């Protein structure tokens, strides 16, 4: 009936159970899915890579009618490639998701707004907790509730909480990049190099051009004279550029 084999189905179930997989984990998953059903697994690197890409395309074609997709993205923190199973529709049916209450989602939306409006792509945790005061449409939320919610959203891999800072995870950016750019067309910035949404990154104070750290590293690592890539800007690029090769940033 279809070109899907047991390995595809198990691979997909695994994606449903795990929120984010990096490139290495995807490779390991592909290997164990093939092996479990005694399907051929090619060890030769290039050919295997081609087969894995094909494997994911077959799955994506099959799940597209249900508005699902295995999508590739990268961490804004270190540029590593990540893969997530995302939902691509917004309908009465997707509203039936039950992981978070309406109040919690309202809070999450406000949080996204603040993160997007900050130039740096994160907000302080105190600021995040104070957001409870601005909820209007829904039930009130205490600070303790908010604290627990932040922890839960971290465990579910929607948020990154690190040293008093709250930022959006790769998983959130992958699912919500369209929502964010549509809702905040004025404030949401795109990376000058990869043209994708850029929340955490390096900003040119002169013209407002933004670059992901790993994208800046790709442009500048071999240059001594660092100039802003913005059109007709040419200002000095004053940020630190990580010198080491960024894992997974090759395409």
């Amino acid at each position: 009936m279809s070109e899907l084999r047991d390995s595809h189905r198990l691979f997909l179930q695994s994606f449903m159970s795990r929120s984010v997989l990096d490139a290495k984990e995807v490779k390991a998953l592909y290997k164990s899915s093939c092996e479990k059903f005694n399907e051929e697994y090619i060890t030769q690197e290039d050919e295997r890579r081609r087969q894995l890409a094909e494997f994911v395309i077959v799955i994506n074609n099959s799940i597209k009618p249900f508005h699902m997709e295995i999508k590739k993205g990268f961490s804004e923190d270190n540029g590593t490639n990540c893969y997530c199973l995302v939902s691509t529709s917004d309908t009465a049916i997707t509203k039936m998701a039950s992981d978070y209450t309406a109040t919690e989602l309202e809070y999450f939306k406000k949080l996204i707004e603040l993160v997007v409006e900050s130039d740096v792509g994160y907000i302080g945790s105190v600021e995040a907790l104070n957001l409870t005061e601005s909820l209007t449409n829904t039930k009130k939320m205490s600070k303790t509730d908010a604290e627990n919610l932040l922890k839960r959203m971290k465990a579910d891999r929607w948020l990154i909480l690190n040293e008093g800072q709250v930022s959006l995870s790769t998983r959130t950016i992958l699912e919500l990049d369209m929502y964010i750019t549509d809702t905040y067309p004025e404030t949401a910035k795109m990376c000058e190099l990869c043209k994708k949404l850029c929340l955490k990154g390096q900003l040119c104070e002169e013209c407002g051009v933004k670059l992901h750290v790993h994208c800046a590293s790709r442009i500048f690592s071999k240059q001594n004279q660092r100039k802003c890539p913005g059109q007709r800007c040419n200002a000095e690029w004053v940020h630190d550029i990580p010198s080491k090769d960024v894992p997974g940033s090759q395409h």
Partner: protein
Amino acid sequence: GRQKAQALNTEFVKFQPVEFVEKLKTFLCGNVLEDRTISTEKWCSLGKAVQPSFKRCPPFRFINGSFERGEVQVRKERVK
């Protein structure tokens, strides 16, 4: 019916619930006599160990589309 009665007759090990959970506790906490409380981590590792006994289907979790977008400044349909 009769077969079952026979089986019951020849049963030589009777299951004792309390004995079973004592074994379980030893399995989880080892043979130490003092602290035998089962911590969250121990419950978790027991769960991990028994998950393969269940054909539970993993749920699909997502955030996009789960909330009302509210007043979105709709731009023209973007081509992917």
